[in-house]
């Protein structure tokens, strides 16, 4: 086996284990930490598959951005407000049925998938290519996201503004 496929197997196993742990644990804070580990390993998977830039973006967006905010939120509600945030597992059997069905669907889909002629993409100069593509072919999506983020920023500062008497 190639070293990258060994890495893939190990990392995929860790992702699966992390996800199960995430579902089982009752402590919401542990769940958030496990989620971070899962995100980090997924980033590692991207790097193993040669998509270095996507992997790092995964760290920036999910681990660094979203997750820190989630953890912050949990912490503030738990220790400062004085009550414990806990989860427990309800409706285990329906949940297992739904997730099993979904898993079956995914396996089926991936097995019957025809990817077509895929060409080997060279790993050189991906960053300039991403940059050029962002402001030429995908300029509309880029601008739409920029406006969305601007709206979010303005919204955040409006909410945070102290009300005048």
């Amino acid at each position, binding site marked *: 086996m190639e070293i990258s496929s060994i890495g893939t197997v190990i990392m995929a196993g860790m992702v699966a284990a992390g996800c199960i742990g995430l579902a089982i644990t009752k402590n919401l804070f542990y769940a958030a930490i496990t989620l971070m580990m899962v995100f980090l390993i997924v980033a590692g998977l991207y790097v193993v598959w040669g998509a270095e*830039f996507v992997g790092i973006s995964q760290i920036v967006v999910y681990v*660094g951005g979203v997750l*820190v905010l989630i*953890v912050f939120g949990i912490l503030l509600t738990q*220790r400062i407000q004085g009550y414990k945030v806990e989860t427990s597992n309800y409706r285990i059997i329906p949940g297992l049925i739904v997730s099993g069905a979904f898993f079956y669907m995914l396996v089926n889909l991936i097995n019957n998938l025809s990817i077509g002629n895929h060409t080997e993409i060279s790993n050189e*100069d991906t960053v300039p290519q991403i940059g050029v593509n962002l402001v030429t072919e995908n300029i509309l999506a880029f601008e739409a996201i920029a406006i969305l983020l601007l709206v979010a920023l303005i919204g955040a500062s409006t909410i945070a503004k102290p009300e005048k008497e």
Partner: protein
Amino acid sequence: MYTFLFYLPFLLIFVVFAVYAERKVSAFVQDRMGPMEVGYYGLLQTVADLLKMLQKEDIVPKAADKRLFQLAPLLIFAAVFTGYAILPITSGVAGAGMESGIYFLLAIVSLDVLGILIAGWSSNNKFALFGAMRSIAQMISYEVPLGLSVIGAIMISQTLDLQEMSFQQGIFSDSANYLFGIKALGIDTTDIGGILTWNILRAPFLIPLFIIFFIASLAESNRTPFDLPESESELIGGFHTEYPGFRWGVIMLSEYGMMLLVSLLGSILFLGSWNTPLPNIGSVTLADWTSGTPGATSGHVWGAFWLFSKTFFLIFLQMMARWTYPRLRVDQLMNFSWKYLTPISILLLLINGLWRMLMI
């Protein structure tokens, strides 16, 4: 590989001497002598302190979350130390040489926020939690001006690879360099090298951006005047209040590691990396004499010498700032980041973009 073989032992030795230097600098600023007893001129004081620290009992508070409490210092150190993986040391040693190097560094280093958060939370102590909250609010806020100032240097260099960025800033550059980056001036500095081809002089508007970078990096490594997270007089020790002995040592190690990391990054991005500051003047080819050959021993020695002299100079500035300025208030800290540093760095970014057009 170089990271473990070179930076790990280097970091350990650096911390011992940085703590000593910190005490001496603080003593000279305050017109004292500093540590004088242990070893010649007090040189072994930190070693003695280290030995004492290692013997301390590893205590976990009863009401603390044991597993997370023990994990947190390692998480902080891992996040900071991973950042070293992509730093070049000399012209022949590029580190991991990733194409998106600096992006990776900023991503992975920002994860130490999580370690601090876990440390503060799992201690189950109000002071620790306050410290952690202040620290996170501060680090997330100051990541914005830090990132913007780094983008300024990236825009001038047109690459995310730190080694490529380093090569551009000296006499080994592939492309032609002009004075202040302006091609129309027609003064070719490619062969002159030295300080004239450093990023701060390739685009002079990087100088204010470098100052912003320096300020933000002080905040990122929780140094005075931005040391609110651990302000001893108010919060005991901030997020590491409950940590004893070795685990406290690991936290301090990552703090000094962060200092070294941001200083290295500052000298690579703005101050010419491992390139010599001395230019070639006519037949007095100072730059050639003090650069060596890339890949050969002379190149390694000169490269590492220049890179670490610049880094240690920046660390000295950080120490001077620590013992000169008083601590900011929380609201001043936030105002300073969001109302001054961020808008100014965005404006400078715009100017740098225009400047880059002059360089083509």
